[in-house]
């Protein structure tokens, strides 16, 4: 039996277009290094810490699946039992689930996005889900505040980011039920459509925009499979399945015989009585014992036709971020080495940085706090590294300045370069006196001598 009757599916994605040029055929999104560890490892380790060792990892694209599978089998060979499934690209999260749905047997399914970097225990989501006998439970996190305030990004990018940054979430006053969920295309001041029946049932809805959907969901398996079977148009969990479930929670088409006890907070009772209402004996009495009480149920004509959509709102002290944009990538890198350093799994030195013993520093080179220098990297003289992550076996010349940047593995940086707010992928060569500001340099690219770039995305054609 699966642990606690939960199965875990990790949606590792494929090669995300949003993260170009950082991702490529060689480096799918899940293997993008965050503090020199693939981002997927954060999820896997979180799950491992929660004692969830049987996982299904769904990857878009055959090549990506091969690479991710290879990495997992190397890194987690006797720690986790991972099954990797490859799905064609572009099937969406719902499609990915559809592909593995037939393998699921447990009562509930925990679905985790592979790009999540968090320390919220998945058990908390699962426990909330179980406690409410909900159909779906979503993890909501306080949205990161510092992240998106960049001016350099173009309007198009802004828009792409919005749905993540600005989820419009409707909650009941006890903040346990999810009554409304919309992607943040609309501004908060503008109109929001809220279902009247739900509003009437609850009495009042709290609309919040400061929460972020962390893409960790617990689903009731039978319901999930039904939806996937019946609604073959559904493409994504967040945009199709979740809104569908929320919309129909008072008039459920999915509640199967197992979900009868779902007279949730949306009953016609005033909402502050939610819990007391739920606490009644009939609520837990199962079908067999409910019949004798049938006369007690008449006030709830459609009690059997409701299901619950719940939320678990993570504590503010927890770290939670998704790697779904380049901005987020540098934010997460910065945080994992900085304020959320417990996630990185490294032990920091007294200077609050990590310098691998095999790294070599030239004279008068300084590495500031919240930095990371991986094994085999060499820095020349008079370099300065601040709030940056430098990967393995990089060769960095003299008089190089690296601030707020991410330098991946095997990068060659020649003398006199200055890199600020940029991401430099593996095997890149920066020749002398290159100046990069807010740039992304794709793998294997060569920036010629003296090149100055600002807010550009450089990649090999």
């Amino acid at each position, binding site marked *: *039996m699966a*642990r*606690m009757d*939960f199965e875990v599916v990790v949606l590792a994605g494929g090669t995300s277009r949003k993260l170009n040029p950082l991702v490529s055929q*060689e480096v799918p999104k899940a293997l993008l290094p965050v503090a020199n560890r693939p981002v997927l490892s954060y999820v896997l380790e979180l799950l491992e*810490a*929660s*004692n*969830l*060792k049987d996982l299904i990892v769904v990857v878009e694209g*055959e090549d990506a*699946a*091969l*690479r991710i*599978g*290879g*990495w*997992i*089998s*190397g*890194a987690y*060979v*006797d*720690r*986790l*039992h991972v*099954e*990797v499934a*490859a799905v064609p690209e572009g*099937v969406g999260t719902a499609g990915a689930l559809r*592909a*593995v749905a037939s*393998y699921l047997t447990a*009562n509930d399914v925990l679905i985790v996005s592979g790009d999540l970097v968090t320390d919220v*225990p998945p*058990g*908390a989501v*699962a*426990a*909330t889900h*179980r*406690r409410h006998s909900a159909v779906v439970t979503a993890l909501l996190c306080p949205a990161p505040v510092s992240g998106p305030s960049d001016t350099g990004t173009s309007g198009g990018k802004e828009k792409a980011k919005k749905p993540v940054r600005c989820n419009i979430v409707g909650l009941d006053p006890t903040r346990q039920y999810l009554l409304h969920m919309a992607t943040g295309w609309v501004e908060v001041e503008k109109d929001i459509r809220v279902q009247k029946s739900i509003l009437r049932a609850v009495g009042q809805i709290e609309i919040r925009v400061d929460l972020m959907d962390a893409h960790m969901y617990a689903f009731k398996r039978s319901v999930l499979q039904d939806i996937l079977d019946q609604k073959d148009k559904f493409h994504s969990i967040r945009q199709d399945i979740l809104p569908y479930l929320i919309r129909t929670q008072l008039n459920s088409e999915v509640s199967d015989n197992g979900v009868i006890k779902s007279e949730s907070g949306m009953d016609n*009772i005033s909402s502050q*009585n939610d*819990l*007391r*209402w739920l606490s*009644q*004996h009939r*609520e*837990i*009495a*199962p079908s*067999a014992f409910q019949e*004798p009480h049938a*006369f*007690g149920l008449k*006030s709830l004509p459609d009690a059997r036709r409701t299901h619950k959509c719940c939320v678990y709102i993570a504590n503010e002290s927890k770290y939670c971020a998704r790697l779904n944009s380049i901005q987020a990538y540098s934010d997460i890198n910065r945080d994992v080495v900085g304020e959320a350093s417990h996630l990185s799994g490294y032990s920091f030195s007294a200077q609050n940085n990590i310098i691998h013993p095999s790294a070599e520093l030239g004279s008068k080179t300084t590495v500031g706090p919240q930095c990371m220098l991986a094994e085999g990297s060499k820095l020349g003289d008079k370099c300065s590294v601040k709030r940056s992550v430098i990967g*393995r076996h990089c060769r960095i010349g003299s008089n190089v300045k690296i601030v707020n940047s991410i330098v991946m*593995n095997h990068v060659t940086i020649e003398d006199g370069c200055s890199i600020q707010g940029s991401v430099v992928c593996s095997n890149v060569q920066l020749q002398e006196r290159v100046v990069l500001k807010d740039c992304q340099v794709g793998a294997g690219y060569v920036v010629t001598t003296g090149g100055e770039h600002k807010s550009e995305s450089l990649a090999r054609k």
Partner: protein
Amino acid sequence: MDMRRPPRTVSDPKVRQVGFVTPSAAPPTRSLSDAPTTVAAAVAASAASASSPPSGEISLPGSSLSPVMIPPPRHASSDGRPSAPVAVPNPASSLRRDSLRIRVGSYNASEVVLGTPPSASPSSRTDNAASEFSDETMSPWHGRSGTAKAASSFPGSSSEMIVMKTGVGGGGGAGSTPKSPLTTASVVKTLPGISEKEREVLMGTQNDGAGASKTLKEKTTKAERRALQEAQRAAKAAAKEAGAGVKPSTASGSAVVANTKQGKVVKPPPQKKDGPQIAPPSGSSEKKVVDRPPEKDRKKDVPAPRMQFDDKHRVEKAKRRAVVNQFEAKNRVELFRHLPQYIHGTQLPDLEGKFFQLDPMHPSVYKVGLQYLSGQISGSNARCIAMLLAFREAIRDYSTPPEKALVRDLTAKISSYVSFLIECRPLSISMGNTIKFLKNRIAKLPDTMSESEAKSSLQSDIDRFINEKIVIADKVIIRHAVTKIRDGDVLLTYGLSSVVEMILVYAHEVGKQFRVVIVDSRPKLEGQVLLHRLVAKGLNCTYTHINAISYIMHEVTRVFLGAASVLSNGTVYSRVGTACVAMVANAFRVPVLICCEAYKFHERVQLDSICSNELGDPDVISRVSGRQDLNHLDNWADNENLQLLNLSYDATPSDYVSMIITDYGMLPPSSVPVIVREYRRENLWI
């Protein structure tokens, strides 16, 4: 009602530690019995494996993939967290990891099995070369898989893999979302993937590991055996001296336990104390013989000494055993120090976070525990039903571990569940009765019964209990109570009792003309729920709070109240405030009718509501819903001179109760002991 946890050994064998055993090596002591290899052979095997992996001359039963080695302490702490439930799930895997590490060759020698230098294993050399292949995206693993020794079933060889994959992709191209095949990327426990040679290595190491542990155990037992015997002898003597009815076996058993298990030292004393109480030394021997069988039963029924929460020593012990994190409650009220202090608000997130880490807990039990903790389920009937259903599911999914008796193991399992539930919220008396019933049923299972029969019989027992003792009992109570309602009556009820609600609804349905006064109290305001439901059904209701009780009582003709329990002196143990309502009604000469199912009766005698009660969240009484401006009690915990008391129950003396309506009819409170005495057997043994 006590906080005793069952022996951890049963619920989580991994925690068990006997003698000088390192954490991950504990299981071997058990597995020894199924691997009857002689010590000599094992030693030989270990000697052999030191030089080279032995060819599989010694074969173990496949099932006993035992652990095996005593990893160096540093290693042990690195691969498993100290909390045992998480650690290496299958000892074999820890072994495998090490054997694999040798082969990969990139780890330091201290982790090597039994000090075998890495170079001693032939495969390590080949893999040293292989591991240089690449070190980042392509794992050493991948490179090594070319040598056809992959431990995992992931790419047997990469070319094979691609072929397989493309085949799938072609098939999937037609459909929109093809069923994708799962590829095992990494394996923890499954062995099939291991190649022959590796298995031999495995076997070899296993063998010598078992040998090592065997010698180890031999030593510890020798060292301990004498102490054990002496303890037994002493216990026997003590039992004889006391002339106690305590069966020597139990006494010595507890002594043994005390000897072998440090953690349980607390337990024997209360048991021994019980002995003399039950059968004082003056009792004649013949009488004792006659007494014995019932005495045995009685001993089971005697409530174990309740946990006194002002006893620091005990509290410390209990805390160490607890699954749920126990926090110190602040500003405890002096008179109620002995009760478990309310700490639930802080427990819930903690417990939720540990959802997947509590190994032995059945999911449904866990769910019920969470629901108790969060207050989603309250009311003694509701809690009782929820608990029974959870146990029923747990029994359905239960399978007896090898070499254990169902009766004993299941009882221990249930006890561990119960103690978990107690940590979530103290048991109600009705739950205590129910648990007693269930344990009795388990104990009474005939030995000849097969496991599946036993399980189904238990499940039907549970169903029957719910049906007969709760559902049908409620119906009977309703029938009785309705005869007491006349047209024109004004009925008063307090709080939210499921039976009373059903009575009112039923009386309304049979066409009685009456009015209902619902009295409510802060902080739970349960009466509002009742009010809402009754109004929805068209009953004529009046709603007031308990501070207006003396005013409203003028017009009332009957008072119907529910109860959490009725004690054998007729005391009604119920939601706090009931006593007040009953007393006021008595003063106004209004009859007070208590509706209570007979399974909630208890033979205990209680004169006040202090010695046994439950404390609620003190914070909720400091807040007034809808009045944010009333914040005078914010941060009350900082003031040492201020304690808040939120009691959950009170005891209503029988003087104020006119009648108790149960499933055996309507009786005066003085008849409760009769019911308890006459129907107890039936209640508990159906």
